[in-house]
Protein backbone atom coordinates (compact mmCIF):
# COMPACT_ATOMS: atom_id res chain seq x y z
CA UNK A 1 0.00 0.00 0.00
CA UNK A 2 2.98 2.26 -0.35
CA UNK A 3 1.39 3.89 -3.32
CA UNK A 4 -1.02 6.06 -1.43
CA UNK A 5 1.33 8.32 0.41
CA UNK A 6 1.09 11.32 -1.86
CA UNK A 7 -0.59 14.59 -1.06
CA UNK A 8 -4.34 14.96 -1.08
CA UNK A 9 -5.85 16.44 -4.21
CA UNK A 10 -6.72 20.11 -4.14
CA UNK A 11 -10.32 19.24 -4.84
CA UNK A 12 -11.15 18.85 -1.18
CA UNK A 13 -12.85 21.97 0.05
CA UNK A 14 -12.19 23.54 3.42
CA UNK A 15 -15.64 22.96 4.79
CA UNK A 16 -15.46 19.39 3.64
CA UNK A 17 -12.22 19.02 5.53
CA UNK A 18 -13.71 20.38 8.67
CA UNK A 19 -16.65 18.06 8.45
CA UNK A 20 -14.24 15.20 7.85
CA UNK A 21 -12.17 16.11 10.86
CA UNK A 22 -15.23 16.30 13.03
CA UNK A 23 -16.33 12.96 11.71
CA UNK A 24 -12.92 11.47 12.40
CA UNK A 25 -12.82 12.95 15.90
CA UNK A 26 -16.29 11.61 16.58
CA UNK A 27 -15.28 8.25 15.23
CA UNK A 28 -12.25 8.17 17.50
CA UNK A 29 -14.30 9.15 20.52
CA UNK A 30 -16.77 6.44 19.70
CA UNK A 31 -13.97 3.91 19.31
CA UNK A 32 -12.53 4.86 22.69
CA UNK A 33 -15.94 4.70 24.33
CA UNK A 34 -16.56 1.29 22.79
CA UNK A 35 -13.17 0.06 23.94
CA UNK A 36 -13.75 1.26 27.48
CA UNK A 37 -17.26 -0.14 27.59
CA UNK A 38 -16.08 -3.51 26.28
CA UNK A 39 -13.16 -3.57 28.69
CA UNK A 40 -15.49 -2.92 31.59
CA UNK A 41 -17.76 -5.84 30.79
CA UNK A 42 -15.53 -8.48 32.35
CA UNK A 43 -14.64 -6.53 35.53
CA UNK A 44 -18.30 -5.63 36.01
CA UNK A 45 -19.27 -9.22 35.37
CA UNK A 46 -16.76 -10.38 37.95
CA UNK A 47 -18.06 -7.76 40.36
CA UNK A 48 -21.61 -8.96 39.81
CA UNK A 49 -20.58 -12.59 40.26
CA UNK A 50 -18.65 -11.60 43.36
CA UNK A 51 -21.64 -9.75 44.85
CA UNK A 52 -23.88 -12.65 44.00
CA UNK A 53 -21.43 -15.12 45.52
CA UNK A 54 -21.32 -13.05 48.70
CA UNK A 55 -25.07 -12.83 48.82
CA UNK A 56 -25.47 -16.55 48.23
CA UNK A 57 -22.64 -17.29 50.68
CA UNK A 58 -20.81 -19.60 48.32
CA UNK A 59 -17.73 -18.92 50.35
CA UNK A 60 -17.55 -17.92 53.99
CA UNK A 61 -17.76 -14.17 54.41
CA UNK A 62 -14.36 -14.14 56.10
CA UNK A 63 -12.64 -15.33 52.97
CA UNK A 64 -14.84 -13.54 50.48
CA UNK A 65 -15.63 -10.09 51.84
CA UNK A 66 -18.32 -8.14 50.07
CA UNK A 67 -17.18 -5.69 47.39
CA UNK A 68 -18.74 -2.91 49.42
CA UNK A 69 -16.60 -3.74 52.43
CA UNK A 70 -13.48 -3.78 50.26
CA UNK A 71 -14.46 -0.39 48.89
CA UNK A 72 -14.99 0.99 52.38
CA UNK A 73 -11.72 -0.47 53.59
CA UNK A 74 -9.94 1.07 50.64
CA UNK A 75 -11.28 4.50 51.53
CA UNK A 76 -10.56 3.90 55.17
CA UNK A 77 -6.93 3.15 54.31
CA UNK A 78 -6.83 6.28 52.17
CA UNK A 79 -8.44 8.47 54.80
CA UNK A 80 -6.07 7.38 57.55
CA UNK A 81 -3.19 7.97 55.15
CA UNK A 82 -1.95 4.44 55.78
CA UNK A 83 -2.15 3.44 52.14
CA UNK A 84 -0.25 6.48 50.87
CA UNK A 85 2.38 6.06 53.56
CA UNK A 86 3.06 2.41 52.79
CA UNK A 87 2.91 3.01 49.05
CA UNK A 88 5.46 5.80 49.32
CA UNK A 89 7.82 3.52 51.22
CA UNK A 90 7.43 0.85 48.56
CA UNK A 91 7.93 3.21 45.65
CA UNK A 92 11.04 4.65 47.26
CA UNK A 93 12.50 1.17 47.54
CA UNK A 94 11.72 0.30 43.96
CA UNK A 95 13.27 3.46 42.62
CA UNK A 96 16.39 3.02 44.74
CA UNK A 97 16.74 -0.60 43.68
CA UNK A 98 16.10 0.20 40.05
CA UNK A 99 18.67 2.96 39.96
CA UNK A 100 21.32 0.89 41.72
CA UNK A 101 20.71 -2.46 40.02
CA UNK A 102 19.69 -1.08 36.66
CA UNK A 103 22.67 1.26 36.54
CA UNK A 104 25.07 -1.56 37.34
CA UNK A 105 23.34 -3.79 34.83
CA UNK A 106 23.71 -1.15 32.16
CA UNK A 107 27.41 -0.75 32.86
CA UNK A 108 27.92 -4.51 32.96
CA UNK A 109 25.99 -5.10 29.74
CA UNK A 110 27.88 -2.40 27.88
CA UNK A 111 31.22 -3.66 29.18
CA UNK A 112 30.46 -7.22 28.13
CA UNK A 113 29.31 -5.99 24.76
CA UNK A 114 32.38 -3.88 24.19
CA UNK A 115 35.12 -6.00 25.69
CA UNK A 116 35.18 -9.55 24.46
CA UNK A 117 37.41 -11.22 27.12
CA UNK A 118 35.07 -9.99 29.82
CA UNK A 119 32.19 -11.47 27.89
CA UNK A 120 33.91 -14.84 27.59
CA UNK A 121 35.25 -15.25 31.11
CA UNK A 122 32.97 -13.29 33.39
CA UNK A 123 29.53 -12.91 31.86
CA UNK A 124 28.51 -16.62 32.00
CA UNK A 125 29.08 -16.66 35.75
CA UNK A 126 27.15 -13.44 36.25
CA UNK A 127 24.30 -14.73 34.14
CA UNK A 128 24.20 -18.02 36.03
CA UNK A 129 24.13 -16.16 39.33
CA UNK A 130 21.29 -14.00 38.10
CA UNK A 131 19.33 -16.99 36.86
CA UNK A 132 18.84 -18.24 40.40
CA UNK A 133 15.61 -16.52 41.38
CA UNK A 134 15.52 -13.78 43.97
CA UNK A 135 13.71 -15.99 46.42
CA UNK A 136 16.64 -18.40 46.34
CA UNK A 137 19.07 -15.64 47.15
CA UNK A 138 16.98 -14.27 49.95
CA UNK A 139 18.46 -16.50 52.67
CA UNK A 140 22.00 -15.48 51.75
CA UNK A 141 21.13 -11.88 51.37
CA UNK A 142 19.53 -11.92 54.80
CA UNK A 143 22.67 -13.33 56.34
CA UNK A 144 24.88 -10.90 54.52
CA UNK A 145 22.83 -7.74 54.61
CA UNK A 146 20.45 -8.34 57.48
CA UNK A 147 16.77 -7.60 57.11
CA UNK A 148 16.89 -3.83 56.99
CA UNK A 149 16.36 -1.44 54.16
CA UNK A 150 19.59 -2.61 52.50
CA UNK A 151 18.17 -6.10 51.99
CA UNK A 152 15.13 -4.86 50.13
CA UNK A 153 17.04 -2.51 47.91
CA UNK A 154 19.73 -5.06 47.14
CA UNK A 155 17.16 -7.71 46.27
CA UNK A 156 15.34 -5.33 43.95
CA UNK A 157 18.66 -4.20 42.51
CA UNK A 158 19.60 -7.82 41.85
CA UNK A 159 16.26 -8.34 40.11
CA UNK A 160 16.67 -5.21 37.98
CA UNK A 161 20.28 -5.99 37.10
CA UNK A 162 19.73 -8.80 34.63
CA UNK A 163 17.10 -7.22 32.36
CA UNK A 164 19.20 -4.13 31.85
CA UNK A 165 22.42 -6.07 31.46
CA UNK A 166 20.88 -8.31 28.82
CA UNK A 167 19.11 -5.41 27.11
CA UNK A 168 22.17 -3.22 26.79
CA UNK A 169 24.33 -6.18 25.78
CA UNK A 170 21.92 -7.42 23.16
CA UNK A 171 21.22 -3.90 21.99
CA UNK A 172 24.90 -3.33 21.45
CA UNK A 173 25.50 -6.64 19.69
CA UNK A 174 22.43 -6.75 17.52
CA UNK A 175 22.26 -3.17 16.48
CA UNK A 176 22.30 -2.69 12.71
CA UNK A 177 25.88 -2.23 11.53
CA UNK A 178 24.92 -0.52 8.31
CA UNK A 179 24.57 2.83 10.07
CA UNK A 180 28.17 2.54 11.29
CA UNK A 181 29.19 2.43 7.69
CA UNK A 182 27.14 5.51 6.97
CA UNK A 183 28.87 7.24 9.88
CA UNK A 184 32.26 6.09 8.64
CA UNK A 185 31.58 7.30 5.13
CA UNK A 186 30.44 10.65 6.47
CA UNK A 187 33.64 10.76 8.56
CA UNK A 188 31.75 11.73 11.69
CA UNK A 189 33.88 12.39 14.77
CA UNK A 190 33.87 9.79 17.53
CA UNK A 191 31.61 11.67 19.93
CA UNK A 192 29.06 12.35 17.22
CA UNK A 193 29.10 8.69 16.25
CA UNK A 194 28.30 7.62 19.78
CA UNK A 195 25.70 10.33 20.25
CA UNK A 196 23.94 10.11 16.91
CA UNK A 197 24.51 6.60 15.64
CA UNK A 198 25.37 4.18 18.41
CA UNK A 199 23.37 5.42 21.40
CA UNK A 200 20.07 5.86 19.55
CA UNK A 201 20.45 2.43 17.99
CA UNK A 202 20.65 0.70 21.38
CA UNK A 203 18.25 2.98 23.21
CA UNK A 204 15.06 1.10 22.25
CA UNK A 205 16.51 -2.12 23.58
CA UNK A 206 17.60 -0.43 26.81
CA UNK A 207 14.22 1.16 27.37
CA UNK A 208 12.53 -2.18 26.83
CA UNK A 209 14.93 -3.64 29.38
CA UNK A 210 14.11 -0.83 31.76
CA UNK A 211 10.43 -1.58 31.51
CA UNK A 212 11.03 -5.25 32.20
CA UNK A 213 13.30 -4.34 35.11
CA UNK A 214 10.71 -2.08 36.69
CA UNK A 215 7.98 -4.67 36.32
CA UNK A 216 10.18 -7.38 37.84
CA UNK A 217 11.49 -5.05 40.52
CA UNK A 218 7.97 -4.19 41.63
CA UNK A 219 7.14 -7.85 41.96
CA UNK A 220 10.35 -8.61 43.87
CA UNK A 221 9.57 -5.74 46.20
CA UNK A 222 6.18 -7.17 47.08
CA UNK A 223 7.82 -10.50 47.78
CA UNK A 224 10.50 -9.12 50.07
CA UNK A 225 8.00 -6.93 51.86
CA UNK A 226 5.81 -9.94 52.43
CA UNK A 227 8.67 -11.86 53.98
CA UNK A 228 10.56 -9.35 56.01
CA UNK A 229 9.45 -5.84 56.51
CA UNK A 230 7.85 -3.46 58.91
CA UNK A 231 6.45 -1.16 56.25
CA UNK A 232 5.38 -1.04 52.63
CA UNK A 233 2.38 -2.12 50.63
CA UNK A 234 3.40 -5.80 50.70
CA UNK A 235 3.61 -5.63 54.46
CA UNK A 236 0.17 -4.04 54.65
CA UNK A 237 -1.20 -6.93 52.66
CA UNK A 238 0.47 -9.54 54.86
CA UNK A 239 -0.83 -7.73 57.89
CA UNK A 240 -4.32 -7.95 56.43
CA UNK A 241 -3.82 -11.67 56.10
CA UNK A 242 -2.59 -12.11 59.63
CA UNK A 243 -5.44 -10.06 61.02
CA UNK A 244 -7.65 -12.28 58.87
CA UNK A 245 -9.18 -9.21 57.24
CA UNK A 246 -9.43 -10.27 53.64
CA UNK A 247 -10.95 -6.93 52.73
CA UNK A 248 -7.56 -5.36 53.46
CA UNK A 249 -5.91 -8.06 51.38
CA UNK A 250 -8.30 -7.44 48.50
CA UNK A 251 -7.81 -3.69 48.65
CA UNK A 252 -4.02 -3.96 48.72
CA UNK A 253 -3.91 -6.51 45.90
CA UNK A 254 -5.94 -4.17 43.74
CA UNK A 255 -3.61 -1.31 44.63
CA UNK A 256 -0.55 -3.45 43.88
CA UNK A 257 -1.97 -4.37 40.48
CA UNK A 258 -2.98 -0.81 39.65
CA UNK A 259 0.35 0.69 40.67
CA UNK A 260 2.24 -1.97 38.73
CA UNK A 261 0.08 -1.31 35.72
CA UNK A 262 0.51 2.46 36.02
CA UNK A 263 4.30 2.19 36.29
CA UNK A 264 4.41 -0.01 33.23
CA UNK A 265 2.05 2.23 31.29
CA UNK A 266 3.98 5.38 32.15
CA UNK A 267 7.23 3.84 31.07
CA UNK A 268 5.69 2.53 27.87
CA UNK A 269 4.37 5.97 27.02
CA UNK A 270 7.71 7.63 27.63
CA UNK A 271 9.40 4.87 25.67
CA UNK A 272 7.12 5.52 22.72
CA UNK A 273 7.86 9.20 22.97
CA UNK A 274 11.61 8.73 23.25
CA UNK A 275 12.00 6.11 20.57
CA UNK A 276 8.82 6.36 18.58
CA UNK A 277 10.72 5.75 15.36
CA UNK A 278 11.63 2.24 16.38
CA UNK A 279 7.97 1.32 16.86
CA UNK A 280 7.16 2.57 13.38
CA UNK A 281 10.20 1.05 11.76
CA UNK A 282 9.16 -2.38 12.94
CA UNK A 283 5.69 -2.14 11.44
Amino acid at each position, binding site marked *: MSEISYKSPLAATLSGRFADKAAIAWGRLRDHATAIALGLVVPLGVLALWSYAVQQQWLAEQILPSPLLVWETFFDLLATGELQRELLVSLGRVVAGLVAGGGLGLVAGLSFGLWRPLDIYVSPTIRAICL*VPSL*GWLPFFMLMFGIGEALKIILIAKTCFLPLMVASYEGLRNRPRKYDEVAAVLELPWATRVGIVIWPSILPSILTGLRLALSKGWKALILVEMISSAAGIGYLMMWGRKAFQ*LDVVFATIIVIGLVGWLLDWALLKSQMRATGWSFKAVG
Partner: protein
Amino acid sequence: MSDTVERPETGLFWKALLLPAALIALWAAADAAGWSNRDLFVSPLQVVQSAIAGFADGSLSGATAATLLRALAGWIIGAGAGLLVGTLIGISGLARGLFNPTINSLRQIALFAWIPLLSAWFGNGETMKITLIALGAFFPMALGAQAGCQNVPEGWREVGKVLELSRRDTLRSIILPAAMPSIVAGAELSLNVAWLGTFGAEYLIGTGYINGMGDGLGAYLAAAREYARMDQVLLGVLFLGLIGVTLDRLVIGFSRKAIPWHRH
Protein backbone atom coordinates in the same frame (compact mmCIF):
# COMPACT_ATOMS: atom_id res chain seq x y z
CA MET B 1 18.38 -11.37 12.00
CA SER B 2 21.71 -10.57 13.52
CA ASP B 3 24.77 -10.69 11.37
CA THR B 4 27.10 -11.40 14.24
CA VAL B 5 27.57 -15.09 13.70
CA GLU B 6 30.87 -15.50 15.47
CA ARG B 7 29.45 -17.93 18.01
CA PRO B 8 31.03 -21.30 17.41
CA GLU B 9 34.32 -20.47 19.06
CA THR B 10 36.07 -23.47 20.53
CA GLY B 11 36.56 -23.71 24.26
CA LEU B 12 34.01 -21.03 25.10
CA PHE B 13 32.30 -23.38 27.49
CA TRP B 14 35.50 -24.16 29.38
CA LYS B 15 36.51 -20.56 29.50
CA ALA B 16 33.17 -19.75 31.04
CA LEU B 17 33.87 -22.26 33.79
CA LEU B 18 37.19 -20.69 34.68
CA LEU B 19 35.85 -18.02 36.98
CA PRO B 20 33.50 -20.29 38.94
CA ALA B 21 36.33 -22.80 39.34
CA ALA B 22 38.60 -20.08 40.65
CA LEU B 23 35.93 -18.94 43.08
CA ILE B 24 35.42 -22.45 44.38
CA ALA B 25 39.17 -22.87 44.81
CA LEU B 26 39.27 -19.61 46.73
CA TRP B 27 36.37 -20.78 48.86
CA ALA B 28 38.11 -24.08 49.64
CA ALA B 29 41.34 -22.29 50.41
CA ALA B 30 39.62 -19.81 52.69
CA ASP B 31 37.96 -22.68 54.48
CA ALA B 32 41.20 -24.62 54.81
CA ALA B 33 42.94 -21.58 56.20
CA GLY B 34 40.16 -21.28 58.74
CA TRP B 35 39.31 -17.71 57.76
CA SER B 36 35.64 -18.18 57.49
CA ASN B 37 33.01 -18.18 60.14
CA ARG B 38 32.03 -21.84 60.54
CA ASP B 39 28.43 -21.02 61.17
CA LEU B 40 27.83 -19.17 57.97
CA PHE B 41 30.30 -20.74 55.60
CA VAL B 42 30.62 -24.40 54.99
CA SER B 43 33.37 -26.10 53.04
CA PRO B 44 32.79 -27.21 49.44
CA LEU B 45 33.50 -30.75 50.56
CA GLN B 46 30.70 -30.57 53.08
CA VAL B 47 28.26 -29.49 50.40
CA VAL B 48 29.26 -32.41 48.22
CA GLN B 49 28.89 -34.78 51.15
CA SER B 50 25.44 -33.40 51.92
CA ALA B 51 24.45 -33.86 48.30
CA ILE B 52 25.53 -37.50 48.39
CA ALA B 53 23.73 -38.00 51.69
CA GLY B 54 20.65 -36.24 50.34
CA PHE B 55 20.51 -38.63 47.42
CA ALA B 56 21.26 -41.66 49.55
CA ASP B 57 18.38 -41.04 51.94
CA GLY B 58 16.15 -39.72 49.19
CA SER B 59 15.44 -36.41 50.87
CA LEU B 60 17.05 -34.26 48.20
CA SER B 61 15.97 -36.37 45.24
CA GLY B 62 12.46 -36.70 46.67
CA ALA B 63 12.18 -32.97 47.17
CA THR B 64 13.44 -32.32 43.65
CA ALA B 65 10.97 -34.79 42.18
CA ALA B 66 8.07 -33.29 44.11
CA THR B 67 8.98 -29.79 42.97
CA LEU B 68 9.38 -30.87 39.36
CA LEU B 69 6.10 -32.73 39.36
CA ARG B 70 4.27 -29.81 40.90
CA ALA B 71 5.86 -27.31 38.54
CA LEU B 72 4.95 -29.39 35.51
CA ALA B 73 1.38 -29.94 36.66
CA GLY B 74 0.87 -26.25 37.30
CA TRP B 75 2.62 -25.30 34.09
CA ILE B 76 0.53 -27.61 31.94
CA ILE B 77 -2.71 -26.29 33.43
CA GLY B 78 -1.68 -22.64 33.38
CA ALA B 79 0.04 -22.64 30.02
CA GLY B 80 -2.78 -24.68 28.48
CA ALA B 81 -5.35 -22.18 29.65
CA GLY B 82 -3.06 -19.35 28.59
CA LEU B 83 -2.72 -20.81 25.11
CA LEU B 84 -6.47 -21.09 24.72
CA VAL B 85 -7.28 -17.66 26.07
CA GLY B 86 -4.36 -16.00 24.30
CA THR B 87 -5.30 -17.54 20.98
CA LEU B 88 -8.92 -16.53 21.43
CA ILE B 89 -7.95 -12.97 22.27
CA GLY B 90 -5.48 -12.95 19.42
CA ILE B 91 -8.00 -13.95 16.79
CA SER B 92 -11.22 -12.41 18.03
CA GLY B 93 -11.56 -8.66 18.26
CA LEU B 94 -14.55 -8.99 20.55
CA ALA B 95 -12.69 -11.24 22.97
CA ARG B 96 -9.77 -8.85 22.84
CA GLY B 97 -11.96 -5.89 23.73
CA LEU B 98 -13.54 -7.87 26.55
CA PHE B 99 -10.57 -9.52 28.18
CA ASN B 100 -7.48 -7.54 27.32
CA PRO B 101 -7.87 -4.75 29.87
CA THR B 102 -8.61 -7.19 32.66
CA ILE B 103 -5.73 -9.49 31.82
CA ASN B 104 -3.31 -6.62 31.47
CA SER B 105 -4.23 -5.31 34.88
CA LEU B 106 -4.15 -8.69 36.57
CA ARG B 107 -0.74 -9.61 35.24
CA GLN B 108 0.83 -6.65 37.01
CA ILE B 109 0.04 -8.23 40.35
CA ALA B 110 3.12 -9.93 41.74
CA LEU B 111 2.52 -13.68 41.74
CA PHE B 112 3.26 -14.08 45.42
CA ALA B 113 0.82 -11.33 46.28
CA TRP B 114 -1.90 -13.84 45.40
CA ILE B 115 -0.83 -16.12 48.25
CA PRO B 116 -3.04 -14.57 50.95
CA LEU B 117 -6.11 -14.75 48.73
CA LEU B 118 -5.44 -18.16 47.26
CA SER B 119 -4.62 -19.71 50.59
CA ALA B 120 -7.83 -18.28 52.00
CA TRP B 121 -9.81 -19.81 49.17
CA PHE B 122 -7.99 -23.05 48.54
CA GLY B 123 -6.23 -23.72 51.83
CA ASN B 124 -2.59 -24.72 52.12
CA GLY B 125 -2.67 -27.91 50.16
CA GLU B 126 -1.88 -29.03 46.65
CA THR B 127 -4.90 -27.25 45.15
CA MET B 128 -3.63 -23.92 46.31
CA LYS B 129 -0.07 -24.48 45.18
CA ILE B 130 -1.03 -25.75 41.76
CA THR B 131 -3.46 -22.85 41.36
CA LEU B 132 -0.71 -20.39 42.21
CA ILE B 133 1.73 -21.99 39.79
CA ALA B 134 -0.89 -22.17 37.05
CA LEU B 135 -1.78 -18.54 37.61
CA GLY B 136 1.84 -17.57 37.20
CA ALA B 137 2.25 -19.71 34.09
CA PHE B 138 -0.95 -18.38 32.55
CA PHE B 139 0.02 -14.80 31.81
CA PRO B 140 3.26 -15.18 29.82
CA MET B 141 1.67 -17.90 27.73
CA ALA B 142 -1.52 -15.93 27.09
CA LEU B 143 0.53 -12.90 26.16
CA GLY B 144 2.76 -14.89 23.83
CA ALA B 145 -0.14 -16.56 22.08
CA GLN B 146 -2.04 -13.32 21.76
CA ALA B 147 0.92 -11.40 20.36
CA GLY B 148 1.66 -14.24 17.98
CA CYS B 149 -1.87 -14.54 16.67
CA GLN B 150 -2.41 -10.84 16.48
CA ASN B 151 0.82 -10.09 14.67
CA VAL B 152 0.44 -12.59 11.85
CA PRO B 153 1.49 -10.54 8.82
CA GLU B 154 -1.47 -9.39 6.77
CA GLY B 155 0.14 -10.94 3.70
CA TRP B 156 -0.25 -14.43 5.09
CA ARG B 157 -3.80 -13.79 6.18
CA GLU B 158 -4.55 -12.72 2.60
CA VAL B 159 -3.13 -15.99 1.34
CA GLY B 160 -5.76 -17.71 3.48
CA LYS B 161 -8.44 -15.47 2.02
CA VAL B 162 -7.53 -15.92 -1.63
CA LEU B 163 -7.24 -19.67 -1.15
CA GLU B 164 -10.72 -19.64 0.40
CA LEU B 165 -9.55 -21.53 3.49
CA SER B 166 -12.14 -22.26 6.13
CA ARG B 167 -11.77 -20.59 9.54
CA ARG B 168 -10.42 -23.79 10.99
CA ASP B 169 -7.93 -24.26 8.18
CA THR B 170 -6.80 -20.65 8.46
CA LEU B 171 -6.21 -21.11 12.17
CA ARG B 172 -4.42 -24.40 11.73
CA SER B 173 -2.41 -23.74 8.58
CA ILE B 174 -1.70 -20.05 8.85
CA ILE B 175 -2.32 -18.34 12.16
CA LEU B 176 -1.02 -20.92 14.62
CA PRO B 177 2.14 -21.75 12.66
CA ALA B 178 2.83 -18.06 12.14
CA ALA B 179 2.31 -17.45 15.85
CA MET B 180 4.48 -20.41 16.81
CA PRO B 181 7.72 -18.53 17.57
CA SER B 182 5.84 -16.18 19.83
CA ILE B 183 3.95 -19.07 21.43
CA VAL B 184 7.18 -20.92 22.12
CA ALA B 185 8.71 -17.81 23.64
CA GLY B 186 5.62 -17.53 25.81
CA ALA B 187 5.89 -21.18 26.81
CA GLU B 188 9.51 -20.72 27.78
CA LEU B 189 8.78 -17.72 29.94
CA SER B 190 5.76 -19.47 31.35
CA LEU B 191 7.81 -22.50 32.39
CA ASN B 192 10.31 -20.18 33.98
CA VAL B 193 7.62 -18.51 36.05
CA ALA B 194 6.06 -21.86 36.92
CA TRP B 195 9.37 -23.13 38.21
CA LEU B 196 9.87 -20.01 40.29
CA GLY B 197 6.30 -20.03 41.49
CA THR B 198 6.60 -23.65 42.59
CA PHE B 199 9.66 -22.90 44.61
CA GLY B 200 8.03 -19.83 46.12
CA ALA B 201 4.84 -21.68 46.94
CA GLU B 202 6.78 -24.39 48.70
CA TYR B 203 9.05 -21.98 50.47
CA LEU B 204 6.37 -19.59 51.65
CA ILE B 205 3.52 -21.95 52.35
CA GLY B 206 5.21 -25.17 53.44
CA THR B 207 2.14 -27.04 54.60
CA GLY B 208 3.69 -29.83 56.54
CA TYR B 209 1.01 -31.93 54.89
CA ILE B 210 1.75 -35.41 55.96
CA ASN B 211 -0.53 -37.01 53.43
CA GLY B 212 0.46 -34.73 50.56
CA MET B 213 2.95 -35.34 47.80
CA GLY B 214 5.91 -34.01 49.71
CA ASP B 215 6.90 -30.47 50.27
CA GLY B 216 9.62 -30.13 47.65
CA LEU B 217 12.79 -28.11 47.26
CA GLY B 218 11.29 -24.91 48.60
CA ALA B 219 10.39 -26.50 51.90
CA TYR B 220 13.74 -28.31 51.88
CA LEU B 221 15.45 -24.95 51.70
CA ALA B 222 13.17 -23.39 54.31
CA ALA B 223 13.83 -26.26 56.70
CA ALA B 224 17.55 -26.10 56.05
CA ARG B 225 17.45 -22.45 57.01
CA GLU B 226 15.41 -23.14 60.08
CA TYR B 227 17.98 -25.61 61.30
CA ALA B 228 20.84 -23.40 60.11
CA ARG B 229 22.17 -26.06 57.73
CA MET B 230 24.15 -23.83 55.41
CA ASP B 231 25.31 -26.78 53.31
CA GLN B 232 21.73 -27.75 52.60
CA VAL B 233 20.76 -24.18 51.89
CA LEU B 234 23.51 -23.99 49.29
CA LEU B 235 22.46 -27.31 47.81
CA GLY B 236 18.86 -26.18 47.57
CA VAL B 237 19.80 -22.99 45.77
CA LEU B 238 22.18 -24.87 43.50
CA PHE B 239 19.52 -27.39 42.51
CA LEU B 240 17.00 -24.66 42.01
CA GLY B 241 19.31 -22.86 39.59
CA LEU B 242 20.52 -25.99 37.79
CA ILE B 243 17.08 -27.42 37.16
CA GLY B 244 15.74 -24.03 36.14
CA VAL B 245 18.48 -23.69 33.54
CA THR B 246 18.00 -27.27 32.36
CA LEU B 247 14.27 -26.77 31.87
CA ASP B 248 15.00 -23.60 29.97
CA ARG B 249 17.47 -25.37 27.67
CA LEU B 250 14.99 -28.18 27.07
CA VAL B 251 12.31 -25.79 25.92
CA ILE B 252 14.73 -23.94 23.67
CA GLY B 253 15.94 -27.20 22.18
CA PHE B 254 12.38 -28.32 21.63
CA SER B 255 11.44 -25.04 20.02
CA ARG B 256 14.33 -25.37 17.54
CA LYS B 257 12.85 -28.69 16.48
CA ALA B 258 9.29 -27.45 16.46
CA ILE B 259 9.92 -24.41 14.29
CA PRO B 260 12.75 -25.25 11.91
CA TRP B 261 11.75 -22.48 9.52
CA HIS B 262 12.32 -19.89 12.18
CA ARG B 263 15.98 -19.12 12.39
CA HIS B 264 16.98 -17.23 15.55
